[in-house]
């Protein structure tokens, strides 16, 4: 790898060093005013709101001659709330799914997050959820997943599964291995509509970087294209074992942690449908907009997502909310069941865990609306 030198940074207008604690408190106080009143007969008695600014500055040198300096400021918001309705209390998060809303950039990133619009929208949606009593009987249905769920599926079952150190068994003890093997490149794992990528070069993203922590220039990685595994995520060591060049996936959270293979911003690629078109020929289905509980086995094959904001679909129309639908399926079934992707591409923010000692690293998770045909949908 040619040695890289220079300086790179996330664009920023107002430096986070110039942001005062009062500024953060003001934002949180304003947001709390949007949650505290509740909605009709739904109260939000407990509210734990967190606004975090981070500044990551690195000086990187290696014996190949690389010399890089970088600066990535980040802003992120998350909150835990309880919602009380008719004496019943539910623990929830805003955004749902223990997710965050975040971007890289200066204090202006907060304006781009539009929390003053998004938070009340979430509160409205959660009030609908906790009032809902309807549960669907488990059966096979068509399912439409919103970008907020698709991003997580991409991260868990495409990104992690495609980390070459897992494929090689290096993470076997804790984070686990992968259902993919060294010879899986070129293998079909999904329908022609299955397409997932990871891209660290997205400006404003939480996973943004121009060079990885081994001095390799960052680029987009196409993990699944047309249902075929096309690329793994590599650092220098795993790339060497595969006879390839690193595609710049080495990241470390601190100067005293080893750079290991990590995702940056993982997503299902958008398609060319509108949501309306995807819904219109569904006779009996469910639209899952968000989730709370999820998990996946350590080979990244057996996964589950329990819906939070979910709605029945009848004859192409989105209808009543339904509680706690359970999508529990294999990775191969998920990618094989996709028959449509919308044009939309939305992002959520998460902290990806891997490594020992644990290295929690900022990422974006994204996707369009995705339609899955004939999927068994359970219920809590």
């Amino acid at each position, binding site marked *: 790898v040619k040695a890289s030198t220079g300086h790179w940074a996330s664009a920023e207008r107002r430096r986070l060093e110039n942001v005062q604690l009062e500024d953060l408190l003001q934002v949180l106080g304003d947001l709390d005013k949007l949650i505290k009143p509740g909605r009709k007969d739904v109260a939000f008695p407990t509210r734990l709101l967190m606004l975090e600014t981070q500044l990551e500055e690195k000086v990187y040198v290696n014996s190949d001659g690389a010399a890089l300096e970088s600066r990535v400021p980040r802003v992120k918001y998350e909150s835990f709330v309880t919602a009380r309705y008719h004496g019943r209390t539910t623990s929830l998060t805003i955004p749902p799914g223990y997710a965050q809303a975040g971007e890289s950039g200066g204090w202006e990133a907060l304006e781009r997050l539009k929390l003053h619009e998004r938070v009340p929208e979430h509160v409205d949606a959660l009030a609908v959820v906790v009032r809902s009593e309807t549960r669907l009987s488990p059966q096979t249905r068509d399912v439409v997943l919103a970008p907020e769920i698709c991003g997580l599926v991409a991260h868990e079952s495409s990104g992690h599964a495609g980390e070459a150190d897992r494929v090689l068994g290096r993470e*076997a003890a*804790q984070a686990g291995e992968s259902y993919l093997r060294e010879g899986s490149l070129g293998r079909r794992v999904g329908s022609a509509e299955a397409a997932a990528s990871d891209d660290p070069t997205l400006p404003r993203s939480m996973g943004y970087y121009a060079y990885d922590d081994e001095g390799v220039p960052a680029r987009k990685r196409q993990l699944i294209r047309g249902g075929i595994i096309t690329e793994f995520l590599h650092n220098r060591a795993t790339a060497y074992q595969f006879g390839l060049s690193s595609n710049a996936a080495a990241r470390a959270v601190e100067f005293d942690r080893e750079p290991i293979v990590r995702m940056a911003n993982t997503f299902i690629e958008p398609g060319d449908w509108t949501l309306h078109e995807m819904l219109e020929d569904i006779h009996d289905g469910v639209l899952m907009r968000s989730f*709370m*509980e999820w*998990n996946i*086995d350590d080979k990244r094959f*057996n996964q*589950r997502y329990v819906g939070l904001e979910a709605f029945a679909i009848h004859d192409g129309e989105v209808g009543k909310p339904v509680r706690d639908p359970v999508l*529990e399926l294999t990775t191969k079934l998920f990618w094989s069941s996709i028959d449509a992707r919308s044009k939309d591409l939305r992002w959520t923010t998460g902290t990806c865990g891997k490594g*020992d000692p644990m290295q929690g690293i900022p990422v974006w998770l994204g996707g369009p609306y995705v339609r899955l045909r004939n999927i068994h949908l359970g219920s809590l």
Partner: protein
Amino acid sequence: MVRFSRSSITVVKSTHALRLQAYIGHRGRRIIGESLDLQPHSVRAFLQRLFASCRTLPASADYAALPRGPFRYGGRDNFDVRVGKACDDLVGVTGEAIEAAEREGARSVAGSLTAEQRHIALATSRGARVQGRGTSLLLNVRAFVDRNSSGHGVACSPRLAELKAGVAGSTAGRLAVEARVASRWRPGKYPVILSPTVAADLIQQVGEYTSAFWTLSGVSFLSGLLGKRVAADGFTLHDVPTGTGVFGGRRFDDEGVPTQTTELIRSGRLTHHLHNSTTAQRAKSRTTGNAGIIVPRPWNLIVDAGDHSQTELVSQVREGFLVTNNWYTRFQDLRKGAYSTIPRDAAFFIKGGRIRHAVRGLRLSGTIPNQLRALRAWSRERQWIQWWEVAIPTLAPWCLIDGMTLTQAAA
């Protein structure tokens, strides 16, 4: 730390960190900060910034002054001087674990051994002055016979001489071999035997959410249940900070208060929450010596021994399962304790009181309160567990729980 995979060491890491943590309480305002730069002028600047920030905060209705010292601290630190000097020994210990797993039939072994030495000095403006130190060794071994057949073993100790590396390795290897021939199973509700590793994960959730920070806020599945039945008759759980045979722990908490043994559950009833001085004031109670300045937390969780052997638990199951390890526990609704978790490594189907064959692809779900109440029996044998999935050191038995929901991914 020594990490290994495919039966070879992949990396040895050594880190040294010196941190200053400061808490300022001033006229009802509270702030916490941490600095890694301990040069005197940097510390002065750090504290000045922290104090200036504190003054900008609104006063808290929950504010409680730090408890007034001085205090007398009992107990003894769990410290082994060999742990800090054990780099070569650690490589040898991992070799012992790998060889033990291979002797049982494992073809590939992965894991990590972490040796930690901690020194803490604490002083408060209310008269607390104390120092403590501790050591810990955490060994986690995962053995494979093939990519689908694996077993897991854990060994934890504060002392190098007491670390049972060979036992962890042979356990992992034996389970991997036993997991090799798996058969189909049907999802449904079954009695399930949880190994100490799996039980420790559920018990740490109980320990974490007995923290008054979470119960008072209404977030926890144990909110509003003080004095009420939350587990089966006879189930007793303590938080134990120090003592003979205790794995981790501290003699003082983050407010300088001497730690104490706190009974959390007595014969199935929730008897105490964990408090710092702030939550204690809010609950009109007393600190239990579990500060965390913001969130009280347990030190070591100990389940009282049951009166069965692990073999006897298996013999009580007409048709059910035994799971040896799990990961990825996530909540749909923390207030209800509604969650699912994924068994990993060896799991077995039991029929007629005997283990019949290995099974794969299970997921356990339900609510923790219901499962605690459905505890049918637990073992005399207990094991200290702390690893990637279990952050709080927990002395856990084998647990037999009725009516656990097992599901399987659609394929």
